[in-house]
């Protein structure tokens, strides 16, 4: 497996860890080359024993050499490319053909544009199957490369990692950097300048429009855009009700999810939106934007509410509905939770089953 990063906080990193856990469950042996990670980060995740994870601390030449060496050595049933940026490295495999199939994971925004230049296009010849996290991502790729027929794709939605659930289910109530307000809306996201499409600004504006001034807004996650967003809250004269927590630990996050009145992330460009699943796990009603991959995750009116991206009036109205309509709230939070629990589409079991089909290996009986 060629990965960009395995141990970090972002969505792709978490996807990678879930993927590795699933491989472990299927007794599939993995050799992992991870470009960005450093040795010291390894301790942040308790990797399954069957994984051989090599880290390269951003050393691209070394990473490329190791990849080529591995491909030349041969003997893998599958080569899994975890990120489009690594795709050129497997082009070599087309000539040598010493391995089975090449799989590419398509997460979201990284493949929504810029994959049609001639180099990239050629590299796609080496890919046998694309694992696309959402239908939207698949369609965006096909818009750029019409030669990619639907048969070259499989929709491979994300799921909550088993170990994540294990840790969260057991999490003790922990202290948070601020006393939690009684009633608050929650967003969990990176706050990067380049990621203003996440819709935090819209939430702040909509919060200012709510008549109920006892509602607060808590944002977990850090990034260089925080001072700017603080300014925005100040401008709407609600900075006393908008709280930026920065990075929080998993157990702190669990508490935030568990106690929030609703989880709100009206993002315009979510490839999938694993945070929606996390919120659903804790029965938090979810409000998202009717855009991109979020549509696959949140069923409007069933497992959450969808609003038009950037429509702050609709957002304020949805927030009002979730806060005040008890029947609606309990319905969507129950349905949301069901979709990440046993039998639902976003469970780890369902994920493992999808992966077993791809690898064509038998499902192992679940550990007793």
């Amino acid at each position, binding site marked *: 497996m060629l990965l960009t990063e395995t141990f970090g906080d972002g969505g792709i990193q978490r996807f990678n860890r879930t993927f590795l856990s699933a491989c472990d469950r299927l007794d599939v042996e993995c050799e992992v080359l991870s470009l960005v990670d450093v040795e010291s980060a390894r301790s942040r995740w308790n990797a399954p024993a069957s994984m051989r994870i090599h880290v390269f601390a951003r050393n691209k030449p070394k990473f490329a050499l190791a990849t080529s060496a591995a491909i030349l050595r041969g003997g893998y049933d599958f080569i899994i490319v975890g990120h489009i940026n690594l795709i050129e490295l497997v082009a070599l495999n087309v000539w040598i053909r010493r391995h089975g199939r090449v799989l590419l994971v398509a997460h979201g925004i990284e493949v929504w544009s810029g994959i049609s230049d001639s180099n990239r296009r050629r590299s796609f010849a080496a890919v046998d199957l694309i694992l696309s996290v959402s239908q939207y991502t698949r369609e965006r790729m096909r818009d750029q490369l019409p030669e990619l027929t639907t048969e070259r794709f499989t929709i491979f939605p994300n799921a909550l990692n088993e170990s994540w659930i294990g840790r969260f289910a057991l999490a003790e109530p922990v202290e948070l950097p601020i006393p939690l307000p009684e009633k608050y809306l929650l967003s969990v996201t990176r706050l990067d300048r380049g990621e203003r499409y996440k819709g935090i600004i819209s939430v702040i*504006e909509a919060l200012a*429009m709510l008549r109920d001034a006892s509602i607060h807004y808590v944002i977990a996650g850090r990034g260089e855009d925080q001072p700017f967003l603080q*300014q925005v809250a100040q401008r709407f004269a609600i900075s006393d009700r908008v709280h930026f927590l920065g990075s929080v630990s998993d157990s702190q996050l669990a508490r935030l999810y568990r106690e929030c009145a609703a989880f709100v992330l009206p993002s315009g460009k979510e490839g999938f939106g694993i945070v929606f699943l996390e919120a659903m796990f804790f029965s938090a009603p979810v409000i998202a934007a009717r855009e991109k991959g979020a549509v696959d995750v949140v069923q409007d009116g069933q497992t959450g509410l969808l609003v038009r991206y950037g*429509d*702050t009036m609709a957002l304020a109205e949805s927030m009002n509905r979730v806060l005040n309509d008890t029947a609606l709230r309990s319905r969507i939070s129950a349905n949301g939770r069901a979709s990440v629990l046993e039998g639902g589409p976003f469970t780890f079991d369902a994920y493992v089953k999808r992966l077993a089909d791809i690898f064509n290996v038998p499902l192992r009986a679940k550990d007793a």
Partner: protein
Amino acid sequence: MCGIVGVFHSDGKLPDARLFASCVERLRRRGSDDSGLWSDPNVRLGHRRLAVVDLSPAGHQPMESHDGRYVIVFNGEIYNHQELRSRLTPADGWRGSSDTETLLEAYRAWGVDCLQKLNGMFAFAIWDRLERRMFIARDRVGVKPLYYGYNGRLFAFGSRPGAIAPLLGATGSDPDPEALRLYLELGYIPAPLSFYRQVRKLRPGHYMLIDARALNIARYWDYRHIPPDTTLRNRPEGELVEELDSLIRQSVRLRLMSDVPLGAFLSGGVDSAMIVAAMKASGVSAPKTFTIAFQEEAYNEGPEAAAIARTIGVEHVTETHSVSDLLALLPMYVEEQDEPFADSSAFATMAVARLARRHVTVALTGDGGDELFGGYHYYPLADRLSRMTRWPRGLRMLLQGVAGYMPNHRAKLLAGALRLNGGVEAFNYLRSFAKDFPPLVTPTVLEQTASSRDWFEQAAASFALDLTSAETGMRLDLGFMLPDGYLHKVDTATMAFSLEARCPLTDYRLVEWAMRLPVEYKLRGGQTKYLLKKALCRYLPPDQVYRRKRGFGVPVAEWLRGPLRNWALDLLHDTSLTSRLPLEHERVRQLFDLHVSGARNAHPLLWAVLMLLCYVARHDRNAELPDFGTHKAA
């Protein structure tokens, strides 16, 4: 067209009645026909009226509903009020024919939702005596102004910040730092800020509810998320032209509702020509049109405007001035602005308003066309600059170094542009007066405040996705520069002469349609306002439509190097004025020298500083304006 003012105090500690009456008086120019006051234990309302619809006393304000429950003060026009009347059945029938009465009944019937049904320009307040709650709203695009202040107990609102400042104990001598910074970057003060710390401007498309418990502000109309509709590309262009033309005619026809004589400004440009053509097509028999012509060839659109009037077949009134005559309007300009305002084209607007008022009470204008249909030259530039920001960093740095050494103004501008990241920043660079000049406000102000770039980025973050830089720029202009710059200018300039301006292109149905229109119908092949010009071709021959646009401004750059140089120097060195502002005075003077030397053009920024100093002189020191009669252009 009127002026309104009001106060609310939940414990009844209202300001003195005489003070309040003097505040209403400050709105005299906004309405010369009538005035009225109303009060109860918690509220005072005041109104100055310019009678345009229902000239009878039945249109007097503040107006109570027939049962006495609601009281309203209202500035503006509800153009579809006849249609609304047909859907309303007041218990005791209608008393008069004014749109004010219609508005009262609309609120009674539909509550806050009445806003969705109104088509017009308005700022109004309705006091519900039963619920003890005040409902205040401003029109969707921001044609009519509404300022307010709230200190936790006392709430005041009005058409001018100067009319409510005394009620809140506010003065302009301690300006809001962010307003000051943005003013020097943009030339106007974007809502919700005002120059007074204690006063705010209600943003367009918003309403407020105030009672003893809370003040709540919410948006009721939003153009920002309406995405361009790509399916329009599949329709024949002729169909789109027809649709646009008919929408404009509808908007104009609605705005012909009036019981007084009515005309239009005609500049020689596309927008005002379109309005006049639509007036004529709507059956106005002989609409009067007004143009200010200049003796100086470079600024004179007089002949073009006259030719357009002849082709369309309307009566045309021209007044010819020397450009420098406009300076005589400066004292009045400063007097009528309660906040510093730096758009020098306001002089021409005032002159044409003065001319029009001699003949009519209501004039239609073409404002809004540039923002909606892509009229400004910098829209295509924004796209080009934003492509440049994607060049490799090394290359940009190299070019920046080269351009920075070239002695010409444009090369220096280019050098500044090469430093930019992203489309919104590129747009801000093109719009902002500050360009790459060193900041003129003190470091403390810089630290406390957000820049225009921050404001634009915040706004752009909530637009429909996947817009080009030019489209983003148009939407930003629609949200900021149109209401807070141009519509403010038109409102103030026309009010100064008790003339009512109506802007058909700001009709919300047209705005929504323009948002859906893909960008290639606005900008195409270097041409601006592509589709609007096609529509105008139905009324005018191509050579009158596709002319080179002349600057509507006055020659500030040359004035500052010549006839106004000494006047400007006097102001810049008057420490009794400059010491009142948190500015880097040495930098200001250096910038002036740089401009006078001809090495750079910094006149928009310098003009903003000079207007700021004039404002301080008039409103704070309450002195006569520095006399530039002696320096006046020959």
